């Protein structure tokens, strides 16, 4: 596969960002109330949305990606503690890394504080990782 120019990549990533932001907002993933109701199982719509998405993506990869090697993430000592920290943060802010941005787009300005926190958290992990941990996190490109 040919490599795309940076301009082409801006265009494609921009298109996906636009559609993803729109979809996440319409689904209700950017609403703290909706996300909290999913976590306490009082409204299962978001849970079905996510489970359905995983199922359909699986079918899609089977149909379109047969014979391709898609990079997989390794399991390493950071997988479990990292997931615990992320889960706690998700419950406190209603935000996974994409959501804080969508929330600000919807006018929920308090999410700017979440965004600052995320920036600091990512920066802090990079400092700590370089000095203490030595495993490969295999984070997505």
């Amino acid at each position: 596969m040919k490599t795309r120019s940076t301009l082409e990549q801006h265009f494609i990533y921009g298109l996906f960002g636009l559609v993803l932001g729109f979809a996440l907002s319409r689904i209700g993933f950017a609403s703290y109330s909706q996300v909290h109701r999913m976590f306490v199982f009082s409204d299962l719509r978001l849970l079905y949305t996510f489970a359905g998405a995983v199922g359909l993506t699986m079918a899609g990869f089977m149909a379109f990606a047969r014979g391709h090697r898609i990079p997989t993430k390794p399991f390493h000592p950071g997988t479990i503690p990292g997931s615990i920290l992320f889960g706690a943060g998700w419950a406190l802010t209603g935000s996974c890394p994409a959501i804080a941005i969508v929330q600000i787009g919807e006018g929920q300005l308090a999410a700017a504080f979440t965004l600052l926190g995320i920036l600091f958290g990512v920066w802090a992990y990079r400092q700590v990782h370089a000095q203490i941990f030595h495993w490969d996190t295999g984070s997505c490109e």
Partner: protein
Amino acid sequence: MLNYWPWWLGSLALAAITIGFWLLLRRPLGVSGSWARIVGWREARAVARAEAPFRVNAAAMGDALLAATLAEFGEQATFQSLSTSGAGAASPSRAMAPSSRTHWTVHLTFLGTMLLGGFIASTSNGTFALRFDLGSVYTQLFGSGWHSWLLLMLGGGLVGFGTQMAGGCTSGHGLSGCSRLVPASLIATSIFFATAVGVSFLAQVMAR
């Protein structure tokens, strides 16, 4: 107020995005990676600068590797190993070729257009409203004002630190990983989901 998409429409959209992303870019969708690339932009610039001469002249890479090998192991050991292992021992392997990573500003575009997507979605159905809280449920659980903002910053810190440590988030582990039954992703997703459930119930009990 409740004009959210039904679950199946949301599933279809998310799946189409995840698969489309891979088909067009041959890269699994993952948002936390974009954060890492943006925060680490200085590092990316340093790598690009260091690699610049090798992009122009691939042979320079072999020379540089040979020079480094000489400096590390001395002349005798180096040429002994070269003669025993055959030609090409010091030539750059494919893995060492200059990286073709996406420029960090592309990730900035990705996150920026996501904000625009949220703006378009909320203005087009009339839910857009500038406000300094996250809605009634959040205020009920955590109050409002500066201490709730402080909590958001702390929570955001956990999200940033945790997703980098775990090597992915809802999109990378949850969608891209789980749909291909990647063991690390299945473990990560069930753990961050279970923790969020636990903390949410705890917040509910403590707010009473």
